[in-house]
């Protein structure tokens, strides 16, 4: 048995096992955790007076999907909201100094 074929022998069953494992659907608990993280990030942006409208839209979409029982979609929307909120926080913090570079001298 060559080294290559030995590797294949070990790896193939692993892939087969993974492929056979069903992808777990998101649950209400997953949604609540994702939504709480997004909401916290958006509140931080609010404290910095720099929320984005698209974050609010993503949060609304997350809630709507959860209400409809589609937790996969709800979690995805909540994660999108969290990423947007974090970007707005990053923007607000970096602009604390960056605005000065745009001033007319």
């Amino acid at each position, binding site marked *: 048995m060559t080294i290559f074929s030995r590797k294949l022998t070990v790896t193939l069953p692993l892939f087969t096992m993974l492929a056979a494992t069903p992808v777990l659907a998101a649950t209400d608990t997953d949604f609540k955790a994702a939504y709480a993280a997004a909401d916290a990030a958006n509140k931080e942006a609010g404290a910095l007076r720099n929320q984005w409208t698209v974050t609010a839209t993503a949060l609304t979409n997350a809630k709507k999907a959860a209400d409809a029982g589609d937790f996969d979609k709800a979690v995805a929307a909540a994660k999108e909201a969290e990423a947007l909120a974090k970007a707005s926080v990053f923007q607000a913090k970096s*602009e604390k100094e960056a605005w000065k*570079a745009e*001033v*007319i001298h």
Partner: protein
Amino acid sequence: MRTAIQIILTALALVTVASGAPAHAADSVDPVADANAFQKYFTAKFPKLKLSDFVNGPYSMNEDMHRQWVEKEEFPPYDFALDAGKEMFEKPFKNGKSYADCFANGGIGVRQNYPYFDEKEGKVVTLELALNRCREANGEAPFSYVKDDMASLTAYMAFTSRGKPFDIKIPNDPRALAAFENGKEYFYTRRGQLNFSCASCHVQNPGQRIRAEILAPALGILNAMPIYRSEWGGMGTISRRFVTCNTQTRGVPLEPQSDEYRDLEYYLSYVSNGLPISGPGARP
């Protein structure tokens, strides 16, 4: 969506890197120097324009549009608001008093002095805010800052000041200087998912098109307020203008007459000192 977010984060990171450069002027508060530099920037950028022409916004940037403006002014779309504003201004409150009792010179020809810094309150007071305070002090409900009644009232008051140069004062009070500086910071700060500051459009790109619109220069931009906007199909106050600008960058707007917006109006008005009031105005 993830790609879009990554692009935005990358852009923000680049801006942060760029901001590493020293910015001396922003580190000390000197309103006179700021106003001089501001006016010099625009007059150098548009050497053919007279200083007073800047109050006509996009109509001063383009020959065709200027011709449209001249024709529009024959039957201006803000006329109805002007008539309504005059009537409202002259109608006494239920207690018999009127707006004239709240303002110097009976409220006639005073627009150019707003906003001012109230040293008692320690904050900027705009004309819109002063009008609502007048109403409340006389037992009347305040108007919405973004709707027609407030636009009509300020249209009439601006009309009585037409031609008078903006004369915004910054008293020798550290809080007034801080308000001016806060307004300046707000003006130059990028916000919203589109990562735009007020200056991105109105300093860096006046005269350029953004979609179908020609961007107005920041110099003199408030002299024409309130305005009838064809895009809105109605009149709009300064509050409405700020709220709309923020929303257009996909930022959640602040509440009208928040400290930030009041300071922004203070800054923008001060740097346009000397330019004539031209409000009410009309814009595409």
